[in-house]
């Protein structure tokens, strides 16, 4: 019998669950597959509907969680197997080698600067807009702020020949090329799955030219570009010429409410985040024109409708009800023509824009089916985890003692993810308490 809880996923939802449990005195293992906790929210610039700085409100939670006496965080780690029943789960976790000793590294950046590949590898944490080296810290506010060595890129690890200036640069002797992947077995009484979401890759929507036209980007790329700690220091630039876009078009529901992409569901957030994106562009330069092409405006949450109205009145956002048919590019200016059928004004029109942002859907991350299989929990047809009862047991799964929360259950925003994290924490605490009463071993 164990009274620990395993939380899979260290995004805002998992963090909330860990804090709630930790504060209750329950011991928590948090397994995060990335080198830093924080999830998607850590990479956003601002969050709707308050326009709070995302990392400013999240970072304190990340740090509290990581340093919480009741929380053990395992990064670069994934659950590969689960056995046993509620109260007696045995979970196998594979922890990938970082090649950096987490206890010694201070996050000083000396090794990342000295890496011979520094500045030569596209930085996926910045949506490939910036660059990094083989030794790197994912982002400025990473928790733990510890370097990691990319084993697929590092010359020493792949080819065995590198003078490895990182070793000398590290005054703490934290670089450890001998580190190996480890498998640890955790004993826990309950599990919370909070694996979050992925952003739909709009490449298959060929009519919008993503991947072909430099100035068509998706919303996560936009977040990094406009983020003060992003690759451009918060200056919104076009990829083609580093010029500031004066007119930005946002196309909603890309890969969402779209049978063809396999995602007929509404992604529930893109109306709001596109409005926020447009507000940010206007806040940076108030001569920026922002046009949002929407299918239906779904501003259903507290303060959402008011937010859209403010977007129109205070930030001059233009909302056009149309799903554009295609985007063409002017090969000389690299400007884009958005072709749309104005369903309220009528007729096919084209609008020239300097930049187009595709508001892409939230979708389940790739490989999530393996986790479902390892845990034995059910998924719906879109690979979201399925609740035992959507109305009355939304955090429960088909396996007693395993709970789900956040965007791995359906697309949802920060508020809902935090709410669900708290809810799942409570369900897990109850499960453990029941067992604590009848210890049978």
């Amino acid at each position: 019998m164990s009274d620990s809880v395993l939380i899979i996923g260290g995004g805002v939802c998992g963090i909330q669950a860990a804090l709630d449990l930790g504060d209750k005195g329950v011991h928590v293992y948090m397994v995060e597959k990335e080198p830093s906790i924080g999830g998607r929210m850590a990479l956003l610039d601002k969050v709707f509907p308050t326009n709070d700085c995302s990392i400013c409100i999240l970072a304190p939670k990340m740090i509290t969680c990581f340093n919480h006496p009741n929380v053990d965080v395992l990064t670069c780690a994934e659950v590969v197997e689960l056995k046993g029943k509620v109260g007696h789960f045995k979970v196998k976790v594979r922890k990938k080698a970082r090649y950096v000793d987490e206890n010694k590294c201070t996050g000083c950046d000396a090794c990342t600067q000295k890496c011979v590949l520094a500045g030569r590898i596209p930085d996926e944490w910045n949506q490939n807009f910036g660059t990094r080296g083989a030794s790197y810290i994912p982002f400025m506010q990473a928790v733990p702020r510890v370097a990691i060595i990319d084993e697929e890129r590092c010359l020493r690890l792949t080819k065995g020949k590198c003078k490895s200036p990182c070793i000398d640069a590290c005054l703490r002797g934290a670089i450890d090329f001998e580190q190996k992947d480890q498998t640890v077995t955790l004993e826990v009484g309950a599990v919370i799955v909070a694996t979050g979401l992925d952003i739909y890759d709009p490449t298959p929507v060929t009519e919008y030219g993503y991947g072909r036209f430099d100035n068509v980007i998706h919303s996560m790329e936009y977040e990094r570009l406009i983020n003060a700690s992003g690759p451009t220091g918060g200056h919104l630039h076009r990829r083609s010429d580093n010029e500031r876009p004066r007119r930005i078009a946002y196309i909603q529901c890309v890969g969402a409410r779209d049978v063809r992409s396999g995602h007929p569901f509404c992604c529930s957030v893109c109306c709001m985040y596109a409005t926020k994106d447009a507000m940010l562009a206007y806040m940076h330069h108030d001569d920026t024109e922002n046009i949002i092409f929407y299918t239906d405006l779904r501003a259903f949450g507290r303060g959402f409708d008011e937010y859209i109205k403010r977007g129109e009145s205070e930030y001059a956002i233009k909302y056009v009800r149309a799903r554009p048919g295609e985007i063409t590019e002017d090969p000389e200016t690299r400007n884009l023509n958005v072709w749309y059928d104005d369903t309220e004004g009528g007729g096919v029109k084209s609008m020239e824009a300097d930049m187009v942002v595709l508001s892409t859907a939230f979708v389940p991350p790739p490989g999530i089916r393996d986790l479902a299989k390892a845990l034995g929990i059910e998924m719906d047809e879109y690979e979201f985890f399925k609740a035992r009862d959507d109305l009355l047991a939304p955090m429960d799964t088909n396996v007693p003692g395993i709970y789900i929360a956040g965007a791995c259950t359906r697309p949802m925003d920060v508020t809902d993810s935090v709410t669900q994290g708290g809810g799942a924490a409570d369900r897990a605490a109850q499960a453990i308490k029941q067992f604590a009463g009848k210890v049978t071993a």
Partner: protein
Amino acid sequence: MAAADPEIVAFTCNWCAYAGADYAGVSRIQYPPNVRVIRVMCSGRVEPSFILRAFEEGADGVLVGGCHEADCHYISGNLKARDRVEGTKELLALLGLGADRLRIKWVNANEGEAFASEITDFTDTLKKLGPNPLKKTKKKAPAAVPDTEEIMARTNTYLCVECGKCTASCPVARRDPEFSPRFIVEESLEKMHAEVETGPQLWDCLTCRTCEERCPYNVRFSEFIRDSRVEARALGLDGKPTQAGQMYSWMRMMASGGLEQDRLAWLDGLKTKSKATAKSDLMFFVGCLPHFDVSHAHVGSNSLDIARDSVKIINALGITPVVLPDERCCGHDLLFGGNPAGFEALARKNAELIKAAGVKRIVISCPEGYQTLAQEYPRVLKGWDVEVLHISELLAEMLEAGKLSFKNDLGIKVTYQDPCRLGRYMGVFDAPRKVIEALPGVELVEMQHFGPDAICCGVSSWISCGATAKSIQMARLAEAKATGADTLVTACPKCQIHFRCALSGKVPGDRGAVEIPVEDLTSLVVKALGDGARSAPGKAATKKAGKAKSKAGSKS
């Protein structure tokens, strides 16, 4: 009695031939009474469609009468009539009706005798030829009118959220503000489907599936249009078929019984056979190429080149294909033109012929035929289990197996037009590109719109060829030209016709911006094969004959 009493339809010009017939009458000159005279202002007004329609309706012979050469009251209308009649004779020969059933005669206003003797002689000839075999065809009961609700449900129109992505994607809507797929669906959803059925826009859709490719809710607009046209036809409405519907005439003729066609004159020494063998059961489905070669000779269609080149390629692969002398139109255009009964009749006839020939695998160079045989035949024919391939797929397959080698370096840059049926309907985007890229010295450059986003050649099913079609064609040709390619390669005989047609007359604006040679993929392949294409069958394949037990049969 029909054999003794042939029916002749005579189109006579107002100024000479009609006056000549009149003169015969007032002069009491006797001639057989089985001619019906239709006066036209000029023999140049007589379109092939008029003649074909007369035969379709059971005429045994058609006479076109005009002024003597140099006497035409409209300068050269009679000469145009003469050329058209020549072409139409070829079509009649292909259809198995025989060229002798059509005559053209110059008759002056005072040549009553000449008119009478022409009718007498023609009547004798027709008596010998016997009645028009189409006469025997019983009039079919009108086809059932489809149920609007059923069409709408089947094609997912109820899922439409009116987002307008279809209309914003549509090449027609971008040019014609009257045409809007969104609005058409909306009308039907608002119980105003009658407006759709009776409106001219129903016939303006290219059924190119660009909208469907992009529709987030999978509304199958092309199918919705296709089946709504059946409703329109039941109301006696028709689209605006090109060439006054001559193609539709011959399609309907082929759908009815009686004809025994002989359409293989073009083979010209190429190796084919009429029945499958145990080793080789592959058929080349020719489709309407011999007919297009005639009907679109004026735009330089040369459609038979595609047929010959296809057989040359198949021969070069060491295969002697089955080619059938009485093959029918595949039925694609009747289906999309709102005549599913005609389509099904053609499908059944072809299926019988194909089954009788023991064919198991069909290669076809026309994407419309390909789509029809591969997707529509299984829908309407029980037990249709013939494998169908576009020639580009056969070529790609053979290239993969190393059974095809090229001799000539072509040294050109080409761009490629994805045909709607091959690409968006059948999902074949890669095979033609693989073939093009395998040709020595051929560089493929893509147009701005390619693959699933390719723009249609502007006309489908011989309906609605007008200013919008021309504008689409010009835009597409300009895209092709802008790539810097030397040749625009098509993989569809109709795309080739439409682009060649667009370039055959005056073009708006700068000709240099759109002028580009248009060639079929098969022609390009034959050029690269060089002597290989003409060599004895088996030569290309003998090298690998040992290990090659391909489904198509490595040797004939």
